[in-house]
């Protein structure tokens, strides 16, 4: 991957190594509109699925709409500055413009679905890191085709290219 560092600007010329770097960079730099503390929500007993409701049955885990945030925050912790930002969005009727942390670049042509991975018993932290320790989500786990394939081999999942790339 190292040989490509100069090409970072040329995303269209990138090979796999490059986009990983670009992604890591984006992930690390991700300036979220609200400093959402995952750890404190998890501590309160919330499950990942409570907010990312699609993870078990759908392709996309999904982000909760601001309405969902307001179910609790209409009453709870209203005084905190970050929560006030949430309330501001809710009042304006605009969805919070979260910055995506994990994504597959379009060049990879991956059609990832959460559901089968969840159903296969892969825990969220395998791919997304230990969110009990993170505040704002960061790109902590690097995904390469190698890491995907290693797991697929271990779990005897399909290794057909067209299982993911089409």
């Amino acid at each position, binding site marked *: 991957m190292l040989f490509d560092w100069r090409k970072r600007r040329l995303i*269209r010329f990138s090979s796999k190594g490059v986009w990983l770097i670009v992604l890591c960079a984006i992930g690390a730099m991700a300036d979220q509109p609200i400093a959402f503390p995952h750890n404190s929500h998890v501590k309160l007993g919330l499950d990942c699925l409570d907010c990312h409701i699609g993870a078990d049955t759908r392709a996309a885990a999904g982000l909760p709409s601001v309405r969902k945030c307001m179910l609790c925050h209409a009453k709870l912790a209203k005084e905190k500055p970050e929560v006030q930002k949430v309330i501001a969005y809710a009042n304006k009727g605009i969805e919070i413009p979260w910055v995506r942390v994990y994504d597959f670049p379009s060049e*990879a042509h991956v*059609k990832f679905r959460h559901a089968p991975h969840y159903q296969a018993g892969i825990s969220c932290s395998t791919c997304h890191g230990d969110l009990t320790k993170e505040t704002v989500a960061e790109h902590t786990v690097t995904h390469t085709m190698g890491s995907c394939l290693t797991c697929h081999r271990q779990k005897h999942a*399909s290794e057909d290219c067209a299982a993911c*790339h*089409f």
Partner: protein
Amino acid sequence: MNQSNQTQHRWGMAIDSDRCTGCQACVAACHAENNLPLSDAESAARGRAVHWIRVDRYYEGEFPDIRVKYMPVLCQHCDEAPCEPVCPVYATYKNPEGLNVQVYNRCVGTRYCANNCPYSVRFFNWFDPVWPSPLDLQHNPDVSIRMAGVMEKCTFCIQRINRAEREAKEEKRPLADGEVQPACVQSCPAEAMVFGDLNDPESKVSRLAESGRSTRLLEELGTQPKVFYLQRAT
């Protein structure tokens, strides 16, 4: 691969020339389903228009005893596909369900496969595709947008196959015959196209493939195509 507990499908298609009217609904349906790059007059003039399925038309005879032959031609998903061995990076290969798959992210663009395809059904992305906004809102999220420098071709609507298989699996039932239909087959007003599992001897496509009118395109090359053309009855 490791799916021994499932019945293995072998997808194939039958096209009834007696029913085909040459209306090209299949062509438009394919464009709508598969995010085919949009050509413009200039790129079309330079031979860059992309139609994963096309309707070949040949005039036969001379006026007034002339007739025309319409023939939808798409990737034949050959069992012995000439495009597969020549790819230096395995970007095109035969998947367990008999589909000839093009892996866009692996393709480096030697275009050897296209030269070696006797059916000329492979298309190349000469440039990154552009859609004047908001035409891009129409993009099918189940299908990749291919970038410059890679080959593409008919996939038998693998996204539909995958979706149907997934849903069948979730509902713990076998796939029914005719449940999976590529966009072209789905659209065909004259129902000239039939898609299904060739491993299932009872499927409609298997029965048509066995019928007396069944032929295959350029069969003499030994490519073992999985698209069966039913000849016109006269």
